[in-house]
């Protein structure tokens, strides 16, 4: 009996029970599936997914669900951010760098029975490219715009010059042609927004039509019928309560060890920790720095991810004080990054010497200008710039914990005392993360020092340097056409190798220009119960749970 009919029957039972005020019907509900058969993996999520259609998502909780249901042409090697065969078994690039031919995995079906073939691949690419109107809103097709840079047609002139040109289906293969070369194309295809979805389901459930409240992310497809090729299939979503997935019996790869996965929604961070401690969930993400030791002591497994992020202290050059390179250098020398990490970041966090973490393609292994903690030098530089004793504005967010910034308040306090130690006065300006703080940093020049960072969504410096320094922004308040040109050149490199070398130079040069100070690459970790095994962490937080096992 399928779960839906059980559910329907139970509902009928309930209705009858209400009608007759009889309360003694016996339940048909099977006992909790634990033990021999595989069991249920319960994971605490911080919020509901925004959407189940991966094309519309860019947040962590939605991605976590999407990663279980969907797969892209390109995947990543488990435990790394390295591109690896996914639904495409291999690929080749044309000599001009603009066309990619993907050999498709044979015998794969979407969970609704639709065959995965070249037509399905092209259907997906064409779907994205042909989006119009509200589907081109920043918050709907965020990642598509970031990678593909535009649509077939758009009212917005800045969205008409995209890189996608066409998709040609072949025998068990497709060729994607771009209008210009894009160095990160292969790693970008591993992003879950570009996962392959069943054309039948997309059409049947009107995936591009507006849903509840006129929002496309709340339409029938995106709330109830996401259909992919992944190891799990969607079962149900009780908003604010849980999302339930079950094992996909016809999955082409390693079949899931558990029968079922439940994402239980617990918004409060402490409540997630406590739910794990009391056995109500089997795991949760983003362990607070202070809880790591406590959990390990209590025999929980704390699984660190390789840091794929950066926390930086931005220095807005619209502020006259910070426009002075000497002041910026003084601040760099004033910071004791190791102390900041020890005091406020998770154990094992490495300090940063550039804006990208070591694991990312484009990291400069050597020749990076460094600013080791040196208060005397900082004082001297401030005196030279005539800035000793000046008051500096320091913006920071509250009520937020990001993978790259677990406790901004604590980090602010640590940095503040270091700056005061070299003779600067600090005026802290805290604001709520969204919308005030982001608005302040992204579009209001009235900010000074500020805390921000980023987590990479693919193995390319594009998601760090490309986003931060590709053009003049209100955030940094700095303008350097030569730098913007180098970033553009790196972005448009022919392939990953060339791109890496170009970005490494950008990364080095940035540390001379010093628009901000990269502080650290905090280690994000998740915690699972002792009975959980086989959880393989991913630097991109793109874990797929088919390897997860629950003991007895």
């Amino acid at each position, binding site marked *: 009996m399928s779960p839906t009919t059980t559910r329907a029957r*139970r509902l009928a*039972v*309930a209705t009858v029970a209400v009608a007759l005020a009889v309360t003694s019907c016996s*339940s048909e509900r099977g006992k909790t599936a634990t033990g021999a058969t595989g069991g249920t993996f319960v994971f605490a999520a911080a919020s509901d997914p925004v959407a189940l259609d991966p094309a519309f998502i860019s947040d962590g909780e939605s991605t976590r669900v999407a990663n279980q249901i969907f797969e892209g042409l390109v995947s990543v090697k488990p435990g790394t951010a390295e591109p690896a065969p996914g639904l495409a078994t291999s690929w080749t690039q044309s000599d001009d760098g603009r066309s990619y031919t993907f050999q498709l995995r044979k015998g794969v079906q979407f969970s609704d029975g639709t065959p995965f073939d070249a037509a399905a691949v092209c259907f997906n690419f064409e779907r994205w490219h042909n989006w119009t109107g509200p589907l081109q809103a*920043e918050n709907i097709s965020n990642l598509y715009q970031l990678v593909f840079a535009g649509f077939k047609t758009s009212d917005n002139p800045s969205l008409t010059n995209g890189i996608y040109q066409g998709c040609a289906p072949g025998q068990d293969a497709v060729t994607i042609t771009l209008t210009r070369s894009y160095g990160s194309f292969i790693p970008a295809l591993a992003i879950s927004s570009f996962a392959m979805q069943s054309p039948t389901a997309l059409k049947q459930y009107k995936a591009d039509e507006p849903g*509840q409240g006129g929002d496309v992310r709340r339409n029938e497809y995106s709330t109830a019928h996401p259909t992919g090729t992944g190891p799990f299939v969607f079962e149900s979503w*009780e908003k604010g309560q849980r999302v339930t997935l079950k094992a996909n019996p016809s999955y082409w790869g390693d079949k899931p060890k558990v029968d079922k996965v439940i994402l239980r929604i617990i*918004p409060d961070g402490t409540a997630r920790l406590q739910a794990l*401690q009391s056995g109500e969930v089997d795991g949760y993400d983003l362990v607070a720095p202070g809880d790591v030791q406590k959990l390990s002591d209590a025999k929980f497994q704390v699984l660190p991810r390789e840091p794929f992020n950066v926390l930086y202290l931005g220095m807005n050059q619209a502020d006259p004080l910070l426009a002075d390179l000497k002041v910026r250098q003084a601040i760099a020398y004033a910071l004791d990054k190791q102390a900041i990490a020890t005091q406020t970041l998770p154990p094992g966090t490495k300090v940063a010497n550039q804006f990208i973490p070591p694991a990312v393609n484009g990291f400069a292994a050597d020749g990076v200008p460094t600013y080791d903690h040196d208060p005397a030098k900082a004082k001297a530089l401030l005196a030279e710039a005539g800035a000793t004793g000046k008051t500096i504005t320091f913006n920071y967010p509250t009520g937020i914990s990001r993978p790259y910034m677990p406790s901004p308040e604590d980090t602010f306090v640590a940095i503040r005392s270091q700056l005061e130690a070299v003779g600067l006065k600090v005026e802290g300006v805290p604001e709520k993360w969204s919308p005030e703080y982001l608005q302040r940093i992204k579009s209001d020049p009235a900010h000074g020092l500020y805390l921000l960072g980023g987590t990479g969504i693919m193995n390319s410096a594009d998601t760090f340097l490309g986003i931060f320094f590709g053009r003049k922004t209100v955030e940094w308040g700095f303008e350097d056409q030569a730098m913007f040109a180098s970033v553009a050149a790196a972005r448009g490199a022919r392939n990953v190798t060339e791109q890496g070398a170009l970005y490494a130079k950008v990364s080095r040069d940035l540390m001379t220009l010093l628009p901000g100070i990269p502080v650290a690459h905090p280690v994000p970790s998740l915690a699972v119960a002792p009975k959980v095994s086989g959880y393989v962490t991913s630097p991109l937080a793109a874990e797929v749970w088919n390897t997860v096992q629950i003991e007895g």
Partner: protein
Amino acid sequence: MIAFIARRLALVVPVLFGLSVLLFFWVRLLPGDPARALLGERATQEGIDRVNRIYGFDKPVPEQYLLFLGRIARGDFGASIRTGQDVTAGFLERFPATVELAIAGLGLAIVLGVPLGYLAARRRDGLLDHLSVGASLMGVVVPVFFLAYLLKWVFAIRLGWLPSAGRQDVRLDATHPTGLFVLDGVLTGEWDAAWDAALHLVLPALALGAIPLAIIVRITRASVLEVLDEDFVRTARAKGLARNVIRRRHVLRNAMLPVSTTIGLQAGALLAGAVLTETVFALNGVGEFLFTAINHLDYPVLQGFILFIAVIYAVVNLLVDVSYSIIDPRARLS
């Protein structure tokens, strides 16, 4: 009675109208640009202009207010900035959790508070009196969220007696026809599910019920003391009526009047307390949603929920007045 209810309902309308005006201007006073809040981190100026056109933020203020009034008259409070969910749907989805919690909290407060207050009054200045008055004072002076954390820490984490978060073990896969999980379990005969949901309610209900409990104990005690002193009780005693009869028919019935008023007054406090309690226990009710909305300045949600809460508050107080007039025939006159 019907005329009375109608008159009371008519009084609610101007209040809601006044509230709608306040809420409308309140949003205008909030820091931050609503359009940008809607579009998120990577908004562009074109996008912001577009949203301003769609929502009419570029129109004159009185016209905007009329648009706003028209929308709320149709029950359209817009969609959450954070999740895009329709505000009315979001409220309805989460309301059962809050109702369940409020009933449990208030129920606990009444079931414990009335007898405690009564006994305290009967044994005035006895040990029980001092204990219950002292304990009820503690309930009022400890911040709700701190009490909730302490209860959770001791009973769920340290002792492991009760669950720490949520409304039910998700592994149970229970059926929820009404959204009130305990009732659902009873109706469907899924007794383990009902029991599990009830266990999940214990700590939140204690935390939420602490303030009403304290107040009910004190009001009951005070009004029982007062009634015991009244002439009619003395007369009854002098007539040689059985003590049980005096207690039931005279003392308790008369002492319950101020208590029932107090319970009505607590409805608002319960909703506010739910914001804090639901957050600590991850109950996903109206309160927790409000908490998240406060943290993200999700103003469509705040606007809608505040209006909904005002309506519920008015309805609860109406119910209290009706029940009051049933308990006390004298009150029907006014």
